[in-house]
């Protein structure tokens, strides 16, 4: 029997049948892994409306958008002044490193620096870009209020309690932090003078 068999033909059939089987097995994985991706109702781009006038001067509130925490900060003139003067200590002063840290509304140098449409209201995703913790708001400059949990030349901003990342008052990451990027920003617009639609 074996003498008469065409071995090269047989080998071709083995490889062809085995290969097709492997492709079929791989294709079967698609629906199973696909089912683990976010479901349609989870994905449905939800918008969140928020009235920024409810935030007192100097106050920070954390709201929810698409299940993610979002910071809304009412920055006083004093806090806005803290944005300047430390660009050399920032990883990405102009928010250009990845798409998530800049948005279409960042169309003026001021909007880029303050990372906000209206400089006094900063709206950013509150998840630290290192491993997703929510950073603590430590707005005043220096160590007076925060002790040695912040560096000596602290310009005010956020400190992540999990792994010690620092962000300035425009939520831009400071050199030496384990976090790779600035806090993410999202599309939003002012519907009225104080009513913001996020998403």
């Amino acid at each position, binding site marked *: 029997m074996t003498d008469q068999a065409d071995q090269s033909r047989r080998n071709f059939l083995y490889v062809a049948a085995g290969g097709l089987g492997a492709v079929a097995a791989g294709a079967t994985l698609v629906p199973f*892994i696909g089912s*683990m*991706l*976010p*479901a349609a109702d*989870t994905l449905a781009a939800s918008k969140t409306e928020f009235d920024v006038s409810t935030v007192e001067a100097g106050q920070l509130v*954390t709201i*929810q958008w*698409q*299940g*993610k*925490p979002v910071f809304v900060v009412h920055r006083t003139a004093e806090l806005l002044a803290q944005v300047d003067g430390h660009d050399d200590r920032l990883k990405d002063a102009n928010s250009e490193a990845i798409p998530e840290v800049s948005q279409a509304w960042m169309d003026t140098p001021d909007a880029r620096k303050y990372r906000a449409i209206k400089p006094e209201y900063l709206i950013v995703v*509150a*998840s630290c870009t*290192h*491993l*997703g*913790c*929510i*950073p*603590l708001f430590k707005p005043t400059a220096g160590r007076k209020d925060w002790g040695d949990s912040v560096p000596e030349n602290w310009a005010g901003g956020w400190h992540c*309690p*999990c*792994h*010690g990342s620092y962000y300035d008052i425009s939520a831009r990451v400071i050199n*030496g*932090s*384990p*976090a*790779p990027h600035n806090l993410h920003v999202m599309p939003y617009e002012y519907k009225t003078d104080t009513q913001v639609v996020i998403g």
Partner: protein
Amino acid sequence: MLDKIMKTDLFAWIDKRTDAGAIIKSQLTEYPAPKNLNYMWNFGSLALLVLVLQILTGIFLVMYYKPSAEATFGGFTVAFDSVERIMRDVNFGWLIRYMHAVGASMFFVVVYMHIGRGMYYGSFKAPRELLWIIGVVILLIMQGAAFFGYLLPWGQMSFWGATVITNLFGAIPVLGEYIGQVLVGGFAVGDPTLNRFFSLHYLFPLLLAAIVGGHIHALHVVHSNNPEGIDLHKPEEMIPFHPYYTLKDAFGVSFFLLFYCYIVFFNPQMGGYFIEVDNYVPANNLQTPAHIAPVWYLTPWYTILRSFESKLLGVAAMGGSLAILFVLPFLCKSAVRSARYRPVYKMMVIMFFIDVIVLGYCGHSAPTATLKVVGQIATAYYFLFFFALPLLPKFEKTKPVPEGI
């Protein structure tokens, strides 16, 4: 007792259809074990005992546990409330849950002792390389199962622990974000995450049970190492596993249960080490606890992650520190197995054990500048230990090993 049962007609009937008698002989009553095994060889059977306890208590907990992050009228969530109900209202629920939660920690205590034994006496060396590699797979699955299980009570530590670990995958180039989404099932940890972690927490112990079967089979092919680390050939050096080691293991079990029951009944939280206090606060996705740390058995690897300022490097080092265990049998080239006859290796491996404890301590504590440096030095030694092993035979003067025992 066993031989009386084996003489009955019923056993003969079963034996004819399953060959049970031959299996009992080859695996128990005539299975040869070295006669000089010390109490460090108890931890394998203890690990099996804890695995059985975990599966058993888990099955009963699932009768009452509900994996849902939906809010309840009390202001908490269905999952959190169902755990509290198990603790307060379900008959013996408190006992079964504490057995399960303490069991998770004790599983790692026992398995880490088992791994340490293997490293000290060179049990990973030829011909037991594959036995060791299967063991590392078991360790990884155990860590996965523990991580999935920790999310289920839906407390603050559950939630933020899962957030941090799923974000780790984001550091992987190209595929990272995709893998993160597959794990979480949404934009952030939430209800879909809880459901899939529950499913996986049920799956992983079943995988464990199967792979433990493979581990034991591989052991029974190559047979046990012994404290002298030498190959045994003479029949007078061996004793049958049953009754000698079944009894010795049973004694170890009673000793283990003494500790286990003390913790379950009198100190189930173990000062915040076995059950973290923050986990009695319901999950809040808008507030991270001031200090978050994984449970003690994951803290050594957490310190390695934290020791690097670059996210990608930290994640790679953490993955590498576990992956390197797979190649240990091929890094350690000395012909002598047991640390008893390897003075330099003995010093190095004891320092390695201390090093892992230091790593664990650093990972459990709030990060300070001093601890960061200590953690970085400990991380460096962790890797140095493994990379120094191939060079060791070049200058280590081993002591003469005995001919037999």
